[in-house]
């Protein structure tokens, strides 16, 4: 079966030089594509998780009593929200990367302790995290002050009230906006190309640089993979949103 598919595309490439699906019939290129998809997945999942954690912690700190803490969070948001993610990636990798210590795994070559993948994760997580802080803040502000007072008057600490009462309610309000931002984050992982992170776009660009006839085929694959990936994310988030609906509370958001 797979053999005949490979044969079909090999023949197609010979007949028509504009449709060279080399990554289907050439195992080396297939491996590059699969590696690329894997790195894209990894980068997406790790950045989604970190950015949500950053958002939750940031939104908590925004309610802190200390003005210094609040200004630091505000400064962070302004910096990451108001600069392009591509510039951030390059700044982190090329500028900050210069100052990070190095280590030598083989006793011969020096390597920076934070790799380009590491910088991509840091930069993209903080970028999306800045938006998540604002998204969660909006959700928190939608929780009535009186609900928080009830938690307080039952003896809950500020942290307990946040974790067990405010956040579960705020989260439900935040989900549609969070959904949007995470979709954007997954799409923005392609910009890690600029610092040579071997994700899908990087691999596909390399392939069509090596085999210029495969350019169209690479573009097609790129769209298919991202539509599928983001499709799964949106599907999952929408299901989650529906599952979180509380009887008799709000419209249910979905």
């Amino acid at each position, binding site marked *: 079966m797979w053999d005949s598919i490979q044969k079909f595309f090999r023949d197609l490439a010979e007949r028509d030089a504009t449709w060279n699906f080399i990554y289907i019939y050439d195992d080396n290129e297939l491996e590059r594509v699969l590696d690329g998809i894997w790195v894209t997945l990894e980068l997406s999942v790790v950045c989604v998780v970190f950015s949500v954690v950053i958002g939750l912690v940031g939104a908590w700190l925004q309610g802190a009593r200390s003005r210094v803490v609040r200004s630091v969070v505000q400064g962070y948001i302004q910096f990451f929200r108001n600069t392009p993610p591509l510039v951030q990636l390059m700044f982190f990798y090329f500028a900050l990367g210069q100052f990070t210590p190095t280590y030598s795994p083989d006793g011969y070559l020096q390597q920076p302790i934070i790799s380009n993948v590491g910088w991509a994760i840091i930069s993209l997580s903080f970028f999306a995290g800045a938006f998540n802080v604002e998204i969660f803040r909006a959700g928190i502000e939608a929780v*009535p002050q*009186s*609900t928080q*007072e*009830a*938690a*307080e*008057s*039952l*003896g*809950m*600490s500020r942290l*307990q009230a946040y974790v*067990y*009462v405010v956040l*579960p*309610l705020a989260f*439900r309000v935040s989900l549609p906006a969070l959904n949007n931002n995470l979709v954007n984050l997954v799409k923005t992982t392609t910009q890690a190309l600029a610092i040579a992170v071997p994700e899908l776009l990087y691999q596909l660009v390399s392939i069509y640089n090596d085999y210029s006839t495969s350019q169209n085929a690479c573009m097609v694959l790129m769209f298919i993979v991202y539509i599928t990936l983001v499709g799964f994310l949106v599907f999952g988030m929408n299901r989650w949103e529906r599952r979180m609906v*509380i*009887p*008799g*509370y709000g419209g249910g958001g979905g």
Partner: protein
Amino acid sequence: MTDTANGHWTSAQPIVSLKDVHKSFGDLEVLKGISFDVMKGEVICIIGPSGSGKSTLIRCVNALNPIDSGSITVEGQEVNDPRLDKLELRKKVGMVFQQYNLFPHRTALENVMMAPVLVLKEDKASVEGRARALIRKVRLEGKEDSFPGELSGGQQQRVAIARSLAMQPDVMLFDEVTAALDPETVKEVLVTIRELAEEGMTCMLVTHEMGFAREIADHIYFTDRGVIVEHGPPATFFDEAKDPRTQEFLGQIL
């Protein structure tokens, strides 16, 4: 007196004592020197026109609103003390709000169980037994697994009372707890409060239910524009009010 209201305060001293309490919101002075004592097991009602500071007064007792000057003590503990251990205070003082303020994402049973488990670190199984008993006590057997949004206002308010009682407080504060209810459901909530009072629970109520106040209260305080205008046991208060402001208020309402 049954053991459900068997508080820890046995002294002949007042369980709650207010002395010359002042409180302003910005330029508006809401409480202009309020003083009175509540003895253990006593039921007091605070009545008065809207905006007379009744709710503010009761909210000061469990430190939801900080006071500007004067003194409030609960079981000898000064509430207006910056080093106040709010948790200790809130273990002693339960509060029920006008808008119920249940946690909409938790079932009735979970609402009742949450604070003892989280705040008092009690064993879940023993809390559950107590919570189910309290739900029976407020006549909501069978509603344990309902979400607040699935309950009527009166039912929600009774869950809120059970939730407060689960912390085994010595004093209960009721802030206009029937003001948001339909006339038909007011009664079921009042019955619950009356039972509590009969069991010897110390209760402070802000209410517009004059008939109820007359029936249940040991002492009535009439506030207007931030001061206590007149007070006395219900019989003398309602029938022999001396101050013209009290007479006018009672004339409008009775």
